[in-house]
């Protein structure tokens, strides 16, 4: 049996790498991939807790999380496409219309 702490630490590591990607990268699509990575880290901890607490609810929640991630990816990529048409760039620094 794999020790629970190690899996949870892996999930924390992956989440941190995702946060770092969001904070440090400039390319919008890479930032988006980092968000997917954070969602996956959360999924991993859901599965781990659901196994260690003998419950199935975590697995059902993963089903919902994956559906939300798919919807988010579709809408987010559509927004990126339409911004790219007007700004002609993928740099997050260029998307400053809502910045004060």
């Amino acid at each position: 049996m794999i020790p629970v702490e190690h899996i949870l630490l892996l999930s924390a590591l992956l989440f941190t790498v995702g946060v770092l990607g969001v904070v440090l990268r400039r390319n919008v699509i890479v930032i988006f991939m980092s968000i997917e990575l954070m969602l996956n880290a959360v999924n991993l901890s859901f599965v781990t807790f659901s196994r260690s607490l003998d419950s199935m609810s975590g697995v059902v929640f993963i089903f919902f999380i994956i559906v939300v991630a798919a919807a988010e990816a579709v809408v987010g990529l559509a927004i990126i496409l339409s911004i790219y048409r007007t700004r002609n760039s993928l740099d997050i620094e260029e998307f400053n219309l809502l910045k004060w």
Partner: protein
Amino acid sequence: MLTIFYIFAALSFFGALGVLFLKNPIHCALSLVGTFFCLGSIYVMLNAEFVAVIQVLIYAGAIMVLFLFVLMLLSSRDMKMSSNNWTAGKIIAGFLSIGIFFQIAYLFTGNELKLGPKGAYPIEVVEEIGSIALIGRLLFTDYILSFEIIVILLLVAVIGAVVIAKRKFN
């Protein structure tokens, strides 16, 4: 079992680091696909076969293919970014994000989280009925309202994507 877990954990971590450090976004996407596959194999080791299959099919299959499509649609000729300057704000933000890791690790290694009341599905029950049957049963009994709401969410996402990404003719 344990060594296989460590191998896959290391591979998934390096894939995630690839997303963080690789220059070309397409390489980032491919290394993220590798991470998803490794996470899928970890799910198999945790007796969550349904999640593993869904992970490979939807994440590594559908979502990442969508990312790659968009990356190839947005031509790579003007993919150059302004140089990644390390301003003071970015360095501080990086250190704060690493602080998030210690916070989560502190929470996860404490014992309060893992000593909750045990649920009704120990590993023997799951193996006897099968995890997919159990998930289906839960989805259509306890979580039926969430299930229907998520269906509406998917519909709205599809319509919204078409409306947002549509080219305006004038």
